[in-house]
């Protein structure tokens, strides 16, 4: 056990150097690919037995690998898609949000935007409270990541007869949805039954079985993420862990290679979303994981696994 600790300390020093380098590069704003970063090359020339096993989940070697890869990732913005877009065929129906603003689905909510869509209704006692808490938590974490201007959340009611603007406004008050300029827009939307149905079907949130589809209690509990500029869409069950939802939105909607995949890599290497950022405060031993000799049941010491490290919803 003591020898393991010794290794941790040694690699800890190495991390500090790596991360200092990493941060200096961030500071300079040159997050471009640095081909053949020296430590990678020197590592691979070592005999196999002397190399750290990079794949082992949550280990110092994995963290080092993660830092190197992140450093190589390109931070330049990606080009927009120029071809036809999925949204070309979206209906441009008008929805009304809880502030009584009229919004066209395709033109205002989708076109050239990053948007996360969910279906809900205010009287729902099933999946909606969970979905809404995820949406609000994502709103906080993603606003920080993208800038509040760059994305918005659209929650559309399945119960437009009951959920008029007043009902939505009350619901927004219940959820304590803040209008802070630091947070992305959130639109709780209603509309005519037909329009909402068209939107719902466009976003794939329906069931092929008409009976299931008509049963509101079985409605789709999904988060559909659209990045119209890159013509990229994906859906995730809203029951996924918050960290996975956050990672998915970043991957679908991120503006650069680094923004899209650094978080994915961090999570897959066994570190929390903020491990890289936390490294800044030299909490390196804090960021890395302790793992037993057999590599089993590695305990990630950073944050709990339930995703609660992400900031809570705006209140």
């Amino acid at each position: 056990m003591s020898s393991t600790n010794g290794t941790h300390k040694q690699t800890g020093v190495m991390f500090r150097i790596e991360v200092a380098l990493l941060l200096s590069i961030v500071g300079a704003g040159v997050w471009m690919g640095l081909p053949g970063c020296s430590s990678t090359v020197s590592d691979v020339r070592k005999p196999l037995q002397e190399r750290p096993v990079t794949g082992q989940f949550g280990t110092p070697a994995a963290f080092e690998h993660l830092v190197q890869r992140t450093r190589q990732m390109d931070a330049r913005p990606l080009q927009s898609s120029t071809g036809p877009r999925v949204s070309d065929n979206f209906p441009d129906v008008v929805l009304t949000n809880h502030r009584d603003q009229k919004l066209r689905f395709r033109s205002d909510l989708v076109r050239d935007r990053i948007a996360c869509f969910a279906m809900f209704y205010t009287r729902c006692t099933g999946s909606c409270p969970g979905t809404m808490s995820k949406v609000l938590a994502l709103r906080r974490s993603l606003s920080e990541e993208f800038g509040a201007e760059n994305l918005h959340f659209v929650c559309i009611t399945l119960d437009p007869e009951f959920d008029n603007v007043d009902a939505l406004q009350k619901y927004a008050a219940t959820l304590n949805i803040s209008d802070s300029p630091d947070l992305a827009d959130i639109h709780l939307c209603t509309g005519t039954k037909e329009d909402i149905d068209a939107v719902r079907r466009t976003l794939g949130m329906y069931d092929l079985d008409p009976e299931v589809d008509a049963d509101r209690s079985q409605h789709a509990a999904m988060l559909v993420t659209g990045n119209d500029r890159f013509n990229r869409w994906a859906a995730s069950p809203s029951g996924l862990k918050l960290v996975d939802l956050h990672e998915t939105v970043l991957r679908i909607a991120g503006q650069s290679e680094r923004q899209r995949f650094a978080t994915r890599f961090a999570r897959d290497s066994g570190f929390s979303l903020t491990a890289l950022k936390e490294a800044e405060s030299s909490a390196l031993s804090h960021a890395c994981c302790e793992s037993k000799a057999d590599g089993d049941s590695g305990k990630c010491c950073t944050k709990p696994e339930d995703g609660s490290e992400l900031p809570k919803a705006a209140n």
Partner: protein
Amino acid sequence: MARNAPKSRRQLLRLTGTAALATTAAAAIAQDPKTRTGGPSIPKTGPRTPTIPKPGVAPITPRPINPTPTPRPPGPVGDTIAGPFRYTPFTVELPIPQEAQPVGIGTSPYTPGDCFHGIAPEFFDRRSAESHGLPWFQTGPEKYYEFRMQQALHEIIPGVKTPVYGYDSTFPGKTIRSRVGQPIVARFWNDLHVETSIHMHGAHTPSHSDGSPQFYVLPGRARDYYYPMSVPMLNGQPDFSESPSTMWFHDHAMDITSHNVWQGMCAFCLLTDDIEQDLIDTHVLPGDPYDIPLCLQDRKLNPDGTMAFNPLDFNGTLGNIWMVNGKAQPVLKVQRRKYRFRILNGSNARFMELQLSSGQPFLRIGKDTWLFPRAIQQQTMMLSMAQRADVIIDFTDAPNEVYLENILAQDSGRGPNGRFDRRVHQAPMRFLKFVVEGDPVPDATSVDVGTALRPHEPINPAEAVVTRTFDFHRRNGAWQINNQFFDPTVANATPTLGTVEKWILRNNSGGWWHPIHIHLESHQLLSFNGGPPPIEFSWKNDTTILDGGGVAEILMRFRTFKGPFVFHCHNNDHEDMRMMFHFDPRTTPTQSPTLIQASYP
């Protein structure tokens, strides 16, 4: 206010020309990562009066990729109509995918550290992948391959240019033909704008080279995959009952597998070991050029000739064009002799039940990756997505025209109509036409019903040390296994290497069909829907059909490689919706669920 800055910048930009707008905007974004990336701004606190007038019906403006879309003029009666296109079927010759050529054998053509996702050979470390005391079988030096994943224009329908993705720009990709025991290092370059991950379907391969959905090949980057192309050990000896014959590799990236495979990312990998080579050399089985891979897929095209794919259809993408090896309804001229066909259902969501129009049965010699212990006869063959049928068709006494056709009725991504044992049939949909020419030719191929092929090692159910049950559900429009969602960091099952487990796969998802694919090793069916499995399912499988309400009890060994590996539904759209779990073989008994032991981002 920060909120006002982008607005004024946009007003400024509006005054400049379009080209200037693009460059300035890009520069602005480059300077300020928080800059608005587009879209109108919506004031947060607006008056309670409509701010945007109700629009009329918005025109949909298709942007054609082909400068002049070429819907053909109406042809003779019998033409196939596929959406906006009309073509005369069975006029285009069946393309047979080229064989991929290695870029090196024995000596690595690569410099250590020259690959972004470097795993093999420079990072390849058996300590990270292999269990102690279970070495693998290797006979030859490493073969090095290089593939570039690229977009290319391809004619599925004659005269209609369709942009596809391909390994080396070909659809399907080039075929790897190699020997069991000779490791392959494949460097895949991603020249596309989407992330990819390559799964060698059916291979016994280390976790880092298994194409796990989050071990991406990032756009513009490359990943090295190390395929030992080996067999696991059984009682201290190489287990040649597990020698792979017919594998295929395809995309497996999280959220985008369905799109990538639909766009064309699939290819064959055909291996032989001494047993199979001997069967070919002694003319039991036909060899090249009478051994032909057939990749059967359905596709749909947009009016502009592009692939019709809706990323927001989560049920399962179906097409209306019947395609073999990338061509709609091609024709193959054959001699009056026996042929071997490796038939792959490479569709995203289309199940198939295949038959020959001549009424003659198939002589089936294998399912999925492996040869059967003996050849069997089948009138029709049921193939789910990703399943393969290794068959011999004898054209000696066949009529001059024989069609390979699908008779299974399926209207949606839910799966075929009816249950597995009460399948609903429809008028045959013809995939491929065989034109049988000339007189019978001398043919020494001796394979016939009952011919011994590859020895089979049945797993004794008493060997199972653990029984696990996996229930596949649909809840609120999403897929779950055992009431849980997929977590990329959690090992849902941790079998101990060298042991046998019994898994019970139950489909409780309300009539949906799911073909369950388990990575790493073959599995053997103990029972299927409460009874003995149909004979073609009774040996080795890598993908097992669960029809609506279906139950399969399977036995599986876990050998050679530590995890994590995945098992999942091979309806690619369900897979993208994370109908997936990790199993993570360990060297020591481990309680699950726990964290995965390794990751290779």
